[in-house]
Structures are given as C-alpha cells and as structure tokens.
C-alpha cells in the first residue's frame, strides 16, 4: 500500500516538475497585464503602475491586506495586555 502511494506521489510530483518545461515564457496567457501597461495611466491617473494596480484595479486585495495587518495588531494587543487589564477582563 505504501509503495503504491509513493509511486502515485512520485508521478504527481514528476508531472509538476516536467510541465513547466513546456511553458512559453515571455508570452503570458492572460492579456490583462498588457492592458494595465497600456491603459493604466489613462484609467487611474497614477504614473506609478504598482500603485495604480494595488489601489485602483485591485483595491479589494489591499482591503484584505489592511485587514490582515489590523488583525495582527489586535492579536498583539490581546496577547500582551497589562496585568490590571488582564485582571479586570476576568
């Protein structure tokens, strides 16, 4: 049973190793990156393309990022309370 499992895992890993060799580098499948390069300044008015993407096209992702930061700050807040705060919370 273990040998069969090992063979299956090897085949899957080999597939993932070999399949990138056929990729056509320099010709992305998605056309959206070329759209950002061509129309980013017109659409957003930001000459910094990174900012144009992460605060205009992908602002929703940035909201998630800010949420992760906020949650981590809250976690530090909760774990490192002062003694009196910890006692008053019960």
């Amino acid at each position: 049973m273990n040998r069969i499992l090992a063979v299956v895992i090897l085949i899957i890993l080999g597939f993932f190793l070999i399949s990138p060799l056929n990729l056509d580098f320099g010709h992305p499948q998605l056309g959206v990156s070329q759209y950002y390069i061509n129309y980013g300044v017109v659409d957003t008015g930001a000459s910094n393309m990174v900012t144009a993407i992460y605060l205009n096209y992908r602002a929703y992702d940035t909201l998630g990022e800010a949420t992760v930061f906020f949650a981590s700050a809250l976690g530090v807040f909760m774990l490192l309370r002062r003694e009196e705060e910890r006692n008053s919370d019960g």
Partner: protein
Amino acid sequence: MDKTSSIVKIFTRKLFPFILLFGCYLISFGHLSPGGGFQGGVILGSAIILLGLVEGVKVTEKRFGEEFLSLTKNIGMLFFILIGFTGIGLGYFFLSDFLPRGDVGSVPNTGLILFLNLIIGFMVGTGIAVIFYRIVRHGSEE
C-alpha cells in the same frame, strides 16, 4: 538607568521631524514615485520606534499616547471600508474610484488613490508603533 549617549539623543531629536516628513512625502507621492502607503507608514512607525528606543517608551508615550495611536489605527480601518461602501452608494462597485481626475503628474489627481494611501500609511505607522509599545512594556514587566 540612563545609558544612552547624548550624541544619539540629540541626533534623534533633530532627525525625528525629518523622518516624519519623509514618511508623509512617501505616502502623499505614492502614486507618482516609488513608495506608497505601506512603505511611508513603516517609516512613520520607525520614527516613533526610534524615539522610543532612545528616549524610553514612557517619555514617547507622553507625546504619542497609545490610546491616540490605537484610535487612529481603528478609524483608518473604518474609513477604508466606509470609502468602499461610498462607491456602492454612488452607483459604482465596491471601492471604485468616484472622484474626478486632474493632469497626470500633479499630486491630487488620482481620485481615491491618494486617500487610500493616506489611510493605509497612518494605519500601518500607528499600528507598528502600538505593537512596539506593547512588546516593550511586556518585556519590561517581567
């Protein structure tokens, strides 16, 4: 107790406003030059951390209180979400850019990007400073 050399203290006091100014510059010019909300916010936070390391957290807390910094962080998060819902209220999608635009190259020309950068910058700066306060105080208790 006071082991910090006076050279470091004086230089930190002189440098502190300039570090804050550089952070605000990075935030407000984030859409024109390299930089942005996160990077500028980290510089704002590191200025407060520098002051806290040199002068001590208690002295720094008189100027930048933990309550104030924490409130800024929470209000920033709230404003981010409120701006997103304003887009829906005006008939666009969530977090869409509903402000008018000026010429490329001027500072307030990109609609929401400037405001989102400001919000993220102050959120990250105050959040990092608050985390630093908490960790230092926790270490000094034990």
